[in-house]
């Protein structure tokens, strides 16, 4: 089925870090105005500002949901400054699939949510 590989389905069936945190230090919310997808990331930091725990939720397509799952794993152990340096190519590469320009926006929604960006800048 075209762009949908086993990795995507694995994350769809067993999403990592999906759910809300009880007492997050910071909450990030992102929208994709093109399709209406919405993601929320709850983040808990250590005293040193390192991300200890992540919980994400929201409605979206397979690509944005799988990307959120993969991305949430990458966040653990990073500071927010580290997160700001993650390139969008890295996020796309992590999915192991070829995406059309409109679906790239789906894959990048988790990153943009954390970066509080609205589109490729």
């Amino acid at each position, binding site marked *: *089925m075209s762009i949908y590989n086993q990795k995507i389905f694995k994350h769809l069936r067993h999403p990592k870090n999906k759910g809300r945190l009880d007492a997050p230090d910071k909450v990030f919310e992102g929208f994709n105005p093109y399709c209406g997808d*919405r993601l929320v990331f709850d983040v808990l930091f250590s005293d040193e500002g390192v991300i200890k725990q992540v919980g994400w939720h929201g409605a979206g*397509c397979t690509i944005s949901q799988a990307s959120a799952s993969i991305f949430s794993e990458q966040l653990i152990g990073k500071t927010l400054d580290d997160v700001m340096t993650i390139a969008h190519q890295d996020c796309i590469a992590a999915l192991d699939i070829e995406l059309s320009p409109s*679906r790239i926006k789906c894959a990048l929604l988790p990153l943009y949510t954390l970066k509080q960006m609205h589109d490729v800048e």
Partner: protein
Amino acid sequence: MSQQLKDTFPLLQNTQHKGDRFVYLDSAATTQKPATVIAAEKAWYERFNANIHRGSYDLAEQATKLYEQVRIKTAQHINAVSPKSIVFTSGTTESINMIARAWARHVLQRGDTIVLTEMEHHSNIVPWRLLAQELELHIEYWPIQRTGELQAVTEMKSVLQQARLLCITHASNVLGVINPLERIIAMAHELDTAVVVDGAQAAAHMQLDMQVLQPDFYCFSAHKMLGPTGLGVAYVDHKHFGAIQPFLGGGEMIQQVTKDKLTFKPMPWLLEAGTKQLAQVFAFGEALDYMQSIGMKKVAQHDRMLSAYMYEQLRGVDGVRVLGSSSENRIGIVSFVVDDIHAHDLATLCNDHGIAVRAGHHCAMPLHDVLGASASVRVSTHIYNDKADIDYMVEKLKLIINEWKKLNS
């Protein structure tokens, strides 16, 4: 419709696609163009191009005549009393924004109420919300029922009575539902409420009659009517001509400019500042001729037949929830959601079979909120679609749903 008719649309023959065949089912976004319309746009540049209402040489006189002839043709197409009611714009969005700025801004006052329906496209929400912020106006929403139809007009009487203006779509770009506009406008006028109609979808599929409907303003786009992009129409009832102020200032709309005085041309030229879309207007005339040669009655009949068929076929697919619950009274638009498969994924998987459908909120986020769906798949048709297109789409949809189930089990 016949294969012969389909063949008059070059894109449908030429498009590179995945899958066994190419099925274009996104006409609500924009329709494909017949060869005659494409040829007309080219012919303008090769044979007729000169600026209108300016030069006194033959070519310019002819250009002016051809442009104004399309204004007359457009008026006839929608049975407007006078071509002076036809203003050419860049599209429905600009038409509505123009009415908000050139008319509503000057006649509405602080505290006035505008009524919008829950099924409006953003283009018939945002201009009014912006105006409401500026003038401190109230916005009320006309709710839809669970069937996807508007709440009965009689129940809205007290709201409409308080309102100065009702902004309403003739047909929903998501649900396909046709609103009973004749009754609604009659009631609104009885209550002294003006009506702005978003006809972007309806104009493409229905025979319009301004003298029967009697809207104050009616807006539509050429590119959804087999015509060129970048062009639209605002129909303005002549009773409002006196209240209209300039929208854009510049060439064409001016009668006289001195260092301390400005006088403007009358309607409709008052609202046509700058050089207009000359080649596109000319090609739009060809699109109107094309539809008239088939007959708008026939276009509408084909549309109703196909939308009812599409609705029933989609409703019969396991796991599909069609938005709106009536196959009657809809233009060729059906939107649906599928359990466990996001609309975007469905559109991508349809594309693998050469099927072009739209996924998302279709610029109607408030409506999707009301329907409890974050996104939907929209299938929309025009004159070049037939039952075989729908059968192919439904067959592939079933296949997609089954494969998806297998992959996820």
